[in-house]
């Protein structure tokens, strides 16, 4: 606000940030319910292979481990970007954000390639109830990652053009919450879908 006013702008902005962060937490919790529903669906359908292959035949654990490592590392570098942001070190923020972006992109590429091979082998989402729920659960996570990457790119542009203002810092905080949240969801997917699936539990 350029105008002269009696309003206590720093206080108002601090309150606004507080509201936004709380609101974003509530949103994340609703997203948590969304994933919980998809996990429940997977739990119900995971045995319904309808004569098709199950998890043990389909999942290649070493491959998924690489995928997982890419995502977990991206969460770490996202944390480094946040630390740099607290120090208002713009180039460091951009560097770590860039690394996070590339790792996220790697994860997404690996996932899409895995999906691609399964579909080519005739094991797409049409094959069975199990595969429908597998593709939807894992794919919803992938879709979240995609939106996260787009968001990251937009914030990157904001930082380049506007610098580390209070506004961009707030958005970066929300993004990092989102990114860590997706990391946690992935840990559940890795455990419940891939590890248990390979053991045929």
């Amino acid at each position, binding site marked *: 606000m350029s105008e002269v006013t009696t309003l206590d702008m720093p206080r108002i902005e601090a309150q606004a940030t507080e509201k936004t962060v709380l609101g974003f937490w509530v949103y994340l919790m*609703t997203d948590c319910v*969304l994933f919980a529903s998809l996990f429940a669906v997977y739990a119900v359908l995971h045995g319904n292979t309808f004569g098709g292959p199950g998890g043990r035949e389909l999942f290649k654990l070493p491959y998924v481990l690489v995928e997982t490592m890419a995502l977990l590392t991206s969460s770490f570098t996202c944390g480094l970007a946040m630390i740099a942001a607290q120090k208002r070190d713009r180039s460091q923020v951009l560097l770590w954000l860039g690394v996070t972006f590339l790792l996220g992109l790697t994860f997404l590429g690996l996932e899409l390639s895995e999906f691609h091979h399964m579909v080519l082998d005739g094991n797409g989402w049409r094959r069975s109830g199990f595969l429908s729920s597998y593709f939807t659960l894992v794919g919803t996570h992938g879709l979240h990652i995609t939106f996260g990457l787009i968001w990251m790119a937009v914030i990157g542009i904001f930082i380049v053009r506007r610098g580390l203002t209070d506004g961009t810092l707030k958005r970066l905080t929300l993004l990092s919450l989102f990114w860590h949240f997706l990391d946690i969801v992935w840990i559940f997917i890795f455990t419940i879908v891939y590890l248990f699936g390979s053991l045929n539990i």
Partner: protein
Amino acid sequence: MFGQFANAFLGRLSWHAFPQDAITRGGASAIVFGGFAIVALITLTHRWKWLWKEWLTSQDPKRIGVMYIIVSVVMLLRGLGDVALMRAQQATSAGNSHGILDANHFQQIFSAHGTIMIFFVAMGFLFGLINLVLPLQLGARDVAFPFLNATSFWLFFGGMALINLSLVIGDFSAAGWLAYPPLSELKFSPTTGVDYWIWSLEISGVGSLLSGINFLVTILKMRAPGMTLMKMPMFAWSVMGSMTLVAFAFPILTVTLTLLALDRTIGTHFFTAGGGGNAMMYVNLIWAWGHPEVYILILPAFGIFSEVVPTFSRKPLFGYASMVWAIWAIVVLSFTVWLHHFFTMGAGADVNAFFGIMTAVIAVPTGVKIFNWLFTMYRGRIRFATPMLWFMGFTVMFTIGGVAGVLMSVPAIDYQVHNSLFLVAHFHMMIISGVLFGYFAGLSYWFPKIFGFRLHEGLGKLAFWCWSIGFMLAFTPLYILGLMGATRRLDHYDASLGWQPLFIVAGIGVIFVLLGVGAQVLQLVLSIWQRDQRRDLTGDPWGGRTLEWSVPSPAPEYNFTTLPVVTARDQFWVDKRAGKTVEARYEDILLPKNTGMGLVIGVFAFLVGFGMIWHMYWLAVVALLGIMISVVVRACDNEPEHILRATEVEKMDNALRRRKQYV
């Protein structure tokens, strides 16, 4: 070549999609001509600019609330039109006579009736009232996220537009208001009907979810200084309970609808009969949302009664703390009863026993609330104004319906009346007397605060009596019919069953209800006509207790010139008793700038839905990109707010208060 191009471009849209028979044509032309009439009226009176500046782009929750309620009222009229058709069909379609509708039409009409009444009447009315009142009651100037609030409204509007478009282009779902598979799967419902159902609910459902987050943060972060949670008005508590349920339940709805859409568009097997799908999983999922949804609707109605009863009894609310605990008990328990909608699934005795017991238990906190209201009335100085009448009608009918509900919580009894008209009578009694009467009470109670003039009392009372009599006439026969074995959703029955007289009585009941609606429309028109004599010059027409009555009517955009300081429950009542007058002080106020971006997002969401329904995937993708770009453009706006100067506030406030001295 051309055909291929048309297929890619238009999906499955063609001339056959437009209505071919008389009744649908009637409905379609009513919508099209109604739309044209409104556009012509606005153009002729040169109101476009006014509409855009004052309403469509407004970020003021009170304006948004009014828009919600206008949409809901229009949708209520449409839902009642469906009722009239269904009742006419069932009253005449016995034996050799087959009534006025064919079976497919009848199915579309009851599906549309349920969907519209819950999603576009009850939900819209709910968010409308919350928008009107919540910030005022909390002593706040706005909701936590004004732009998100406007976007929620426009998503709701987009969903509403889609469901009505189904009358004009294509058809509507004939699979019931919750579209159980496998009937709702592509194999058995190949037309666009179920897709319309899915996408209109998906879009408005996302709007509801965003509203839920918004109002939760508003309550947690924007209460006036000194207003601890236990000093909040009860309506605010009830909204908090309801919005918590929204946050937990609506993601489940989003998932369920999406899975059904995937089954129908890309051939997954979630709920299909073959391929490893599980149709009962759908029923579980949809009711894991659907049962909390009932409480999402009714908790705020309880909140409204908790405001109305003390005001018109001139006593503080009895058992404030127990009311709060009752709300939260209902919030928790509402997630433990969903299976009572399908005891007949065959889950086994233990599971049925658990859900049966929980269902009986959830009646306890509801009973606590009823008794608290009655104790509030006890030895009070009761005024029988319209809002109070709605409350008293509610008490009687809700108790009857509630007892019928407890009866059905026993699985053995439920097996007898499952999917019968007994059930239909039960849940209409809960939702009409609970939710709708509650919202009517709220609307007539807060109307002067929003518009600055009162509604005609006599016509309001007439409306109440017509509704109540009509309602009892319409649903008492259904209880009896249900016990006689009449299942729901019948478009024809055998004359020898002896049901027809009771169906005719139910039909007469609907005529009374329609008279009640007529009285309400007349009440509105007459009150607007006579608004100069009906002005509320005090700002406190009912002898209110909470903060919203401390500001002039109509409440100004900024709500409060200075933020109130709260030291007690019923702060305004305490201030009045102490003879405390507010000294006029003015300060700069930060308000959100108007923006049309919410509307733009709503239009794009509508196009996403339309593209998905008609398989015009390019349109869906383009519109989705449109939404994303809109969000980014909005994020680039560095100054979404403007400052209202203290001097301007003073001018506006004086104009509002000066009127008092004129008359």
